[in-house]
């Protein structure tokens, strides 16, 4: 493969200029690079990661993966409703274990749990004709109440009397909700629009309860208990239970997102404070910069002029990898930068010079055997190639396995290592060789 070194040299020069531009501060004519930023993982940006296990024992095996996807969708929606920027929600099925992994940047563990934990189970209750109002006159009344009524939410009992009936109308019968404001009082309300089935159910309930009270219950609490004046057949209802704008919006949002189709159990939680993440980032970038400087000094001391050329290649290599990270952020294949990912990158810098060391050592040997410079140069590259190829392929095998079996931080490490290995082969073989060919021509 004897290509024209001039052509390759220009290619490298242009590539270098592009990567330098990409990494300069986004000011003036460079402001188009503003959208190119590192996609930081939770450990660097701060945030919470939760691994949840779906309890599938009541779900038909054929429906389980569907239920899992539905749970994922709902968590995603909730995270978006509550203003979490760029939440990542994934599902994982391991044998009989169905999991949802939610990564919520910029959110503390408590906030994260309340986002996922808001169950928003809406139910409608009607009074039982056989029931009686609760009268607590003496201790016996209280004991009796506990003995017979413990299955019912207490606040429902207060409104509807004993033995209230939970109707078959629930949150899943709601098609859409919105926040409106009462035209007279200006107070926020939640407007409900039922599905066709829901409208039918709601019409039945209101028809049989004209003149009676129906309780609207959210997560076991009565939020409103209006008296039904006439049957409602249109499938519209308004809840005006003393909301503030915020609580009305929250209710509307969580009703829209719906209830989780399966109960979720927390398996693992990890949260990092944003200030700590930033500290990690600064520390590891500093270590990386220092590593590069050390390698440049080391290579220059060991190999003199060759070392300087290798150092140039190394700087281009670094710019190239950093640019790949940045540019990937606007593609669907965004590379998330994590602490271990940066470690992988720094390690790949060390490995990147290995190819050059292999080649230079080989060139030294060929020189000792009495060959001319340009001959030693070509032999150095061609004879070192097999070991560079084999050793890098085995590194790629390891990173592939790591990516496949690893979770979270391990995946990040594997990906940056693999990118580092690939780019380093390019920098050692193409960039260094072109520089040398042009110089020793």
């Amino acid at each position, binding site marked *: 493969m004897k290509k024209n070194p001039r052509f390759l040299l220009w290619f490298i020069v242009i590539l270098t200029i592009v990567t330098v531009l990409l990494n300069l501060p986004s000011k003036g004519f460079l402001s188009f690079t503003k959208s190119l930023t590192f996609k930081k993982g939770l450990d660097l940006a701060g945030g919470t990661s939760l691994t949840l296990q779906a309890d599938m024992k009541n779900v038909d095996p054929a429906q389980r993966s569907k239920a899992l996807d539905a749970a994922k969708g709902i968590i995603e929606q909730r995270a978006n409703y509550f203003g979490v920027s760029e939440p990542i929600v994934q599902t994982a099925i391991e044998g009989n274990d169905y999991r949802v992994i939610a990564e919520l940047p910029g959110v503390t563990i408590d906030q994260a749990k309340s986002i996922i934990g808001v169950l928003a189970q809406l139910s409608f209750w009607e009074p039982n004709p056989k029931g009686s109002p609760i009268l607590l006159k003496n201790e016996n009344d209280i004991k009796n109440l506990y003995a017979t009524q413990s299955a019912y939410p207490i606040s429902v009992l207060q409104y509807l009397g004993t033995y209230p009936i939970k109707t078959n109308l629930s949150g899943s019968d709601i098609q859409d909700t919105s926040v409106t404001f009462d035209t007279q009082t200006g107070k926020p309300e939640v407007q409900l629009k039922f599905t066709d089935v829901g409208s039918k159910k709601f019409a039945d309930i209101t028809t049989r309860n004209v003149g009676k009270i129906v309780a609207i219950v959210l997560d076991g609490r009565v939020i409103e208990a209006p008296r039904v004046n006439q049957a409602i057949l249109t499938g519209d209802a308004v809840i005006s239970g003393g909301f503030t704008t915020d609580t009305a919006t929250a209710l509307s949002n969580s009703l829209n997102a719906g209830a989780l189709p399966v109960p979720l159990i927390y398996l693992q939680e990890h949260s990092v404070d944003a200030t700590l993440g930033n500290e990690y980032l600064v520390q590891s970038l500093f270590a990386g910069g220092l590593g590069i400087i050390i*390698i440049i000094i080391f290579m220059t001391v060991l190999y003199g002029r060759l070392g300087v050329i290798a150092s140039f290649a190394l700087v281009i290599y670094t710019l190239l990898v950093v640019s790949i990270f940045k540019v990937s952020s606007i593609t669907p294949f965004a590379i998330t930068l994590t602490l271990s990912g940066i470690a992988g990158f720094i390690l790949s810098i060390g490995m990147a010079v290995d190819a050059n*060391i292999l080649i230079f050592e080989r060139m030294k040997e060929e020189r000792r055997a009495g060959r001319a410079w340009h001959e030693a140069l070509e032999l150095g590259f061609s004879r070192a190639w097999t070991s560079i190829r084999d050793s890098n392929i085995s590194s790629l095998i390891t990173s592939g396995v790591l990516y496949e*079996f690893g979770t979270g931080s391990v995946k990040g*490490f594997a990906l940056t290592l693999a990118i580092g290995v690939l780019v380093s082969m390019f920098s050692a073989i193409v960039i260094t060789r072109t520089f040398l060919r042009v110089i020793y021509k």
Partner: protein
Amino acid sequence: MNIIKHKNWYFALSLLVIVPGIIAMLLWGLNLSIDFTSGTLMTLSFNNTVNNNQVQAVDNSLKSIGVKGSSEISGKLIFVRSSPLDQAQNAKFLSTLSGKYKDVKELESQTTGPTIGQETAWNAFKAVAIASILIILYITWSFREVPKPASSFRFGICAIIALIHDVLVVVGIFAILGHFFGVQIDSLFVTAILTIIGFSVHDTIVVFDRIRENLKKMGGKDFPKTVNDSVIQTIDRSLNTSLTVFLVLVALLLFGGESIRWFVVALLIGIISGTYSSIFNASPLLVLWHEISEKRKIKK
């Protein structure tokens, strides 16, 4: 320099490091972090350097929620390990503690349930095993044209023995560190092990590649000499490469921050062991294997 001649001494030196590690593993087991078991790990920060008063307060706060735990000081930080805490316990712990020290902040917290811990451990083991098998296959394939008396399969096996050597060195040393200094094995450690595997094979392949080349050139008449020459010819490269990676890791160790410190230590030990095994174990093993099979042939 004749490395092959003294190979038994080099094998002995390896065993000198590996055997105590294996004994430590058998006696005390590995000090596994909550990534593999279960529990809660919290990082608390204070405005000023922490002393025993704060640690005492942390212990008391843990007691108040009826949980046993241990804490470790580092500058302004306290790392607290305990059995898994739920949200209510965590909140109560923090409010009790901030009653005494208003400046306390929870920087990081991680809770792992028991099932997922075991699964992580199993996945880690699987990853190491699968990576090893794939690498044997690759080397066997890549060295398929190696001239007699060597065989590509032997190259693969010897590379893997060197690899297992490096893994045992690192895991053994961490078993000892875990027992005496409380160093824990977490999922980053597994990443370190896998990187070491990659590096170890990387190093070994460079030497093997030279043996392959020299066998083609000189023929296989004096196999031990060919191997020895190959090792000597590549030793500069092996040392220089290891030294660069070593220097980068030292930079990471000094400035890379608290949370990856032991990860870097594991890598450092692995790099040293990997360099040693590629020079003093992998190639000498090839010769040992060759000698044994030659003896068998003569007996027949």
